[in-house]
């Protein structure tokens, strides 16, 4: 019923508007020289507004950004991003200037004549070739980096981890001493075997199912992703890593952690961001936030999509070995 009330108010506003127009009689309709002058100046003003907003965002929202890449592979992502961003930033400032400045400068007057200027192959060649040359650089670096990230064939002794997704939870399985994962399929899901591991597979015996991912610093990790119900996407923003989890197939992604969690916590960008967050949390009376790497779901997967997360801990090799040795194998857990 409340909806009806709102609709009634909207209609009432419409009707009163209708009545007002009777008085105004909607006289003006085509731009006069005065309009051209005012609107042209407004465009100049808008240019100032846009510049101010862009500069404000660039400076004051910098603290929001993700900190430096925590994976070795991600360093090139950051560099490529910076190159691209500076480039588009320059073009953006330039193009908006030309557009709005021309709109101001050439605002119409009765006595003015526009210049009949229909074509210039030279100019067009310039602005076809310039972007093309710039693109060669971006495409070249981009494709090299893409290959660098996605080609996992040459990784030496990588750590294999299966990341398993379902509504609305992550699970993970380490490959164990043989560093080979046992087969998995939804048909094997039963009781505590929540990831559907085929326990008749010899490779599965030493696999370890965990609720928190630990990674050793400096060793390449290859993630194998599976999903049991709908699409999910494993997003690890600090490592510049993301891959969809697709029911019916295994997808993979790899990276080498560069900093431990402890090292990240004292990094200047992280300290600054954490301080800003904690200031806000304190005002709301919430517990302070401590930085942690995180795995979140980034593909719409259902009502509680927004809650799906898992903590990732990066530690030194020693600490990792100790932690993993404490985890029980599947053979011990599932009889």
């Amino acid at each position, binding site marked *: 019923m409340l909806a009806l009330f709102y609709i009634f108010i909207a209609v009432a506003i419409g009707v009163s508007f209708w009545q007002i127009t009777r008085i105004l009689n909607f006289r003006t309709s085509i731009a006069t020289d005065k309009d051209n002058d005012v609107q042209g100046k407004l465009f100049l003003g808008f240019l100032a507004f846009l510049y101010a907003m862009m500069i404000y965002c660039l400076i004051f929202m910098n603290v929001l950004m993700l900190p430096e890449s925590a994976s070795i592979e991600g360093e090139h992502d950051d560099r490529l991003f910076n190159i691209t961003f500076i480039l588009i930033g320059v073009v*953006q400032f330039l193009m*908006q200037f030309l557009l709005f400045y021309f709109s101001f400068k050439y605002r119409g007057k009765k006595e003015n004549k526009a210049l009949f200027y229909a074509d210039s192959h030279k*100019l067009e060649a310039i602005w076809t070739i310039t972007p093309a040359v710039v693109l060669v650089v971006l495409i070249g670096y981009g494709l090299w980096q893409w290959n660098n990230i996605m080609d996992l064939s040459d990784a030496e002794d990588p750590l294999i981890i299966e990341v398993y997704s379902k509504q609305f939870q992550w699970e993970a399985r380490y490959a164990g001493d043989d560093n080979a994962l046992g087969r998995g399929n939804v048909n094997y899901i039963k009781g505590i075997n929540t990831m559907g591991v085929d326990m008749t597979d010899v490779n599965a015996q030493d696999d370890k199912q965990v609720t928190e991912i630990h990674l050793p610093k400096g060793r390449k990790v290859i993630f194998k992703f599976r999903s049991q119900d709908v699409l999910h996407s494993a997003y690890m923003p600090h490592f510049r890593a993301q891959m969809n989890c*697709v029911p019916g*197939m295994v997808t993979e992604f790899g990276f080498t952690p560069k900093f431990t969690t402890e090292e990240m916590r004292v990094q200047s960008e992280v300290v600054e961001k954490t301080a800003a967050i904690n200031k806000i949390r304190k005002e709301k009376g919430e517990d302070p936030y401590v930085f942690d790497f995180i795995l979140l779901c980034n593909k719409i997967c259902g*009502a509680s999509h927004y809650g799906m997360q898992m903590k990732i801990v990066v530690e030194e090799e020693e600490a990792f070995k100790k932690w993993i040795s404490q985890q029980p194998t599947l053979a011990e857990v599932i009889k």
Partner: protein
Amino acid sequence: MSEHHHKETFVTKYIFSQDHKMISKQFLITGIFMGVIGVFMSMLFRLQIAWPEKSFTIIEAFLGPHQNDGIMNPDMYLALVTIHGTIMVFFVLTAGLSGTFSNLLIPLQIGARDMASGFLNMISYWLFFISSIVMVVSLFVEAGPASAGWTIYPPLSALPQAIPGSGLGMTLWLVSMAIFIASSLIGSLNYIVTIFNLRTKGMKMTRMPLTMWAFFITAIIGVVSFPVLLSAVLLLIFDRSFGTSFYLSDIFISGEVLHYQGGSPVLFEHLFWFLGHPEVYIVLLPALGITSEIIATNSRKPIFGYRAMIGSIMAIAFLSTIVWGHHMFISGMNPFLGSVFTFTTLLIAIPSAVKAFNYVTTLWKGNLQMNPAMLFSIGLVSTFVTGGLTGLVLGDSALDINIHDTYFVVAHFHLVMGVSAILGMFAGIYHWFPKMYGRMMNKTLGYWHFWITLISAYGVFFPMHFIGLAGLPRRYYTNTNFPMFDDVADINVVMTLFAILGGVAQLLFLANFFISIYRGKKAEQNPWRSNTLEWTTPVEHIHGNWPGKIPEVHRWAYDYSKVDDNGDYVHGEDFVLQTVPLKDGEDPS
């Protein structure tokens, strides 16, 4: 002509009309109606984003069973973003924009009495109408409307166990889209045939206004890609209702293993984006065509680089059909394919840059007439540049990994296709309103409408890039579960305030539009002193468009401010209708 004297009943004139001018108005009004729903939804979910799980009476009023004490349910949040996307992309910016202006302008600007098939044209509108009705009805089903995102990726969209909206709501969505695609195909074929066959004497392809080129190429992309979406939709209906496994395999949900074997959601993604990406240009190219025409007219200058503009429309159209994989870099498809799609995607920057530079050069040394349509066109170029540039970041597969499905993407596509296309649509409405209704819209309201819309569009979508770079995923009901995103809360509030401002500003437009239909000042025949053929028709609509013979065309559409050697206007005024023959010694442009 005898057909002028046919007696018309109310039904044949206003409802089952076969006249392209009436059909274009029907498309526009339906599009506006759907647009109001789509924009209103976005304001509801913006409330939730800015003030998570806070109670609002307006949410209580409109969301019925899908809210608790004014707090919307997470399901409903997803449903709102899904239907907002669907309505805005298909119903407003495809049918509302292309349907309106292709229908209105194609016969008028090429010099034809009507579309090639008036009957099919009527069918096209009524199919669109039915699909709109089905979509609106789906909002009222018990479990809620489709809520798997506008991209409806299975298995989420295929399994009602996964999300309630994938029940009857999804079925209605699919039925509505199937009907919509039929409507779009019939319309597009009609546009193509009309442009090929019904051009008046002298209207060579190379003399057509750029609007015609844009609509023509748009129709071709639509015919090439919409059938693929239809097949994707049909296969999904099969998976949902008849037990096939095109997209589904190895699924365990609600405690049981489902029977599906051997399908792949990645197949759906390929089929969907084979339309989905060209769709961006189906939305955008008509807006760019409209803008080309309006910028030239109001700059009193020929459009700069007419042939380059046509070339870039064609290049964009061609490339648009071979870049769909850039939506799927991290879908699990072969990384080599990712490389190919990165390459083709970034190439689109070249023709897009040519278009942007050509617009700016057209303004240079012009005599700019700041009519509301002109303001919207300049605004379009601005948002097209801002949004287009970030495409260089997203199109690069290596960079896409970390910003895929974050708010950076949302900011990018809203600016480059959402806001740009909407501004183009408004530009078209302000410019051709006199042709549609024989009256003028109020310019002061138009100015206010423009400035509030542009400022709020930037206010919403510019800061959004940075939230995306902070790593915040889109389609989150709330980000309060992640303390690392606590620092974006204030920005979300600002963005929502801008969104509400922008939404409310559209009331100015609605008032101006509907009141002007009845009370606007009577229009002159050629109010904007334009060159194109539609302004040679009488203000009052008649069947067949021109009372006598169809005029012959003797020149291109852009002889604005053409001067002779003495610097005087060749034809005494700063515009020359396409129907005016060349003078002795006048260079054809």
